């Protein structure tokens, strides 16, 4: 139920400016994901919102109240850390109850809320255990439970899935998505370097690069209309194919980008042609790597399995109007017509 307004937020550590003026509105009840390569400042931005770091300049507002000077607990946030950060000497119950105990809530109230959260996350059987007796996935659930118990206005997640193995990561991702649906109107901010997590969880994604916002939008907006070469390359897997030099010139651009699913194999008269250098079969899809003479081979996506042999020369062409054109500065040019 809380909306956040970040106005020209800056953060310096000594002489180094890490966050270079971020202005962003986060809507009430929204699931916002900060994504970017490591060192882009996404975790720092989250810690500024949490209140674990001081904001150097700019204002941070929760529901139009400036919270720059408030401690994390007074801001009404809860945070889930990458390393779980459970209190090792306390039982699961005490871990979850600690914040409420400090706030001097009545015992009965604490018990109710902890039990409700535990039930929600299916960790009721473990309430008497110590963190060291739990698996990684269970620990992360306790950490999420601890955040739920605090009944926060804003939920913050700092790469919560990075320490889990692949299968568990997908399962926990689903849990978090379900959590967001079931807790109506709780604003969530989630930091990750994994664009798949960002795409699957977010209402809106904020792509950060080098301390500045690169683009904010829904996952599909970012996927379909990247506002820079960087976003185009960062969002989507496999990576968007980029061609420059003479390949781009015929589209009157400095660089063109085309997604692997927007390239088709033709019988003859392709726009590009070259031999197959590698192919990956994933069962449902296949990726064919074709060397058309550009810096990196073009990745072509085909449904199902493919019968293309290594060395076979293919004729390729873009499908429809799906070529993204970028100028020298990596900014998009008006929608293409070739």
């Amino acid at each position, binding site marked *: 139920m809380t909306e956040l307004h970040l106005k020209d937020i800056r953060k310096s550590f000594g002489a180094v400016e890490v966050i270079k003026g971020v202005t962003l509105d986060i809507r009430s009840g929204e699931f916002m994901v900060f994504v970017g390569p490591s060192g882009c400042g996404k975790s720092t931005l989250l810690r500024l919102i949490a209140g*674990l770091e001081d904001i150097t300049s700019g204002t941070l507002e929760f529901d139009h109240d400036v919270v720059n000077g408030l401690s994390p*607990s007074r801001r009404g946030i809860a*945070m889930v850390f990458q390393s779980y*950060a459970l*209190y090792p*000497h306390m039982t699961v119950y005490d871990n979850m109850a600690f*914040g409420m105990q400090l706030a001097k809530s009545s015992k009965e109230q604490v018990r109710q809320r902890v039990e409700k959260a535990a039930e929600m996350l299916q960790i009721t059987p473990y309430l008497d255990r110590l963190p060291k007796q739990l698996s990684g996935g269970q620990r992360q659930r306790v950490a999420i439970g601890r955040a739920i118990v605090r009944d926060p206005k804003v939920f913050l997640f700092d790469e919560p899935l990075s320490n889990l193995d692949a299968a568990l990561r997908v399962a926990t991702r689903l849990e978090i998505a379900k959590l967001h649906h079931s807790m109506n109107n709780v604003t969530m901010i989630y930091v990750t370097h994994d664009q798949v997590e960002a795409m699957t969880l977010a209402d809106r994604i904020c792509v950060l690069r080098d301390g500045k916002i690169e683009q904010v939008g829904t996952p599909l907006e970012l996927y379909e209309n990247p506002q820079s070469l960087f976003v185009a390359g960062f969002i989507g897997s496999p990576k968007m194919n980029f061609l420059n030099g003479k390949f781009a010139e015929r589209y009157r651009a400095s660089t063109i980008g085309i997604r692997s699913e927007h390239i088709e194999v033709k019988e003859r008269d392709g726009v590009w042609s070259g031999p197959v250098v590698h192919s990956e079969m994933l069962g449902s899809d296949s990726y064919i790597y074709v060397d058309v003479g550009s810096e990196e081979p073009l990745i072509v996506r085909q449904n199902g399995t493919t019968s293309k042999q290594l060395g076979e020369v293919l004729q390729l062409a873009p499908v429809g109007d799906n070529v993204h054109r970028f100028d020298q500065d990596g900014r998009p040019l008006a929608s293409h017509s070739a």
Partner: protein
Amino acid sequence: MTGTVNLWALAKRTAFYLLVLAIIVESVFPFYYAILTSFKAGTALFEVNYWPTMIAWDNYIAVFRNGSFPQNLMNSVIVAACTVALSLLFAVTAAYALSRVRFRGRSILLLTILSVSMFPQIAVLAGLFEVIRAFGLFNTLWGLIFSYTIFTLPFTVWVLTTFMRDLPIEIEEAAIVDGAKPWTIITRVFMPLMWPALVTTGLLAFIAAWNEFLFALTFTSSNSTRTVPVAIALLSGASQFEIPWGTIMAASVIVTVPLVVLVLIFQRKIISGLTAGGVKG
């Protein structure tokens, strides 16, 4: 062929155990001889033998009959316990500041603290004497507690600072998000995780305060405020030419027993604390 190999292995093992035996005898023998002597009475004291020939409690009874010894023992307990409590309190709070709060001159401060412990006791004796006189603490237990705390603090601060630095920062941040203030973080989150370090440093501080002699001799002047090490040294016999070895040994044994018991109790705690490895979240 195998015969010689076995012989060589046997020789090596024998040499190893002989060495172990030598080390044990070297470290235990003085204490063993003290116990042995404490159970002798009369002229038997001056016969040299290495196995107990008699068990006489005369010396122990004599020690406790000696007017001020129980009082001295009590003094030692009070002084050592207060020193441990004070130095742990200061050290834990200082360690939090030194390991977790960023401020200018932090590492210089740490080095200064360490350098304090480099001075030999005798170098600061005169100055400390003046300080204690000025505070009106001469010939009181507080004077001893004060001076011992000064000497144990550098060590305790250093050990606890290093230990606290290794505690994951996220745990502290989680506590901050939960609304904990520094004092709550120290007492309810950090101290339970630091038991092994607290017990170890506390024990060492206790032993140092318990056995200290020079300050105790200098800063006290009456029997009622002396601690045990000084009291033992000042035990006198029937005449000024007689050194009462029997009672001295009995008193020494009495004084050592609490330390041994303490170490045995807490050693378990130290080991269990370390193997629990409870730091990783």
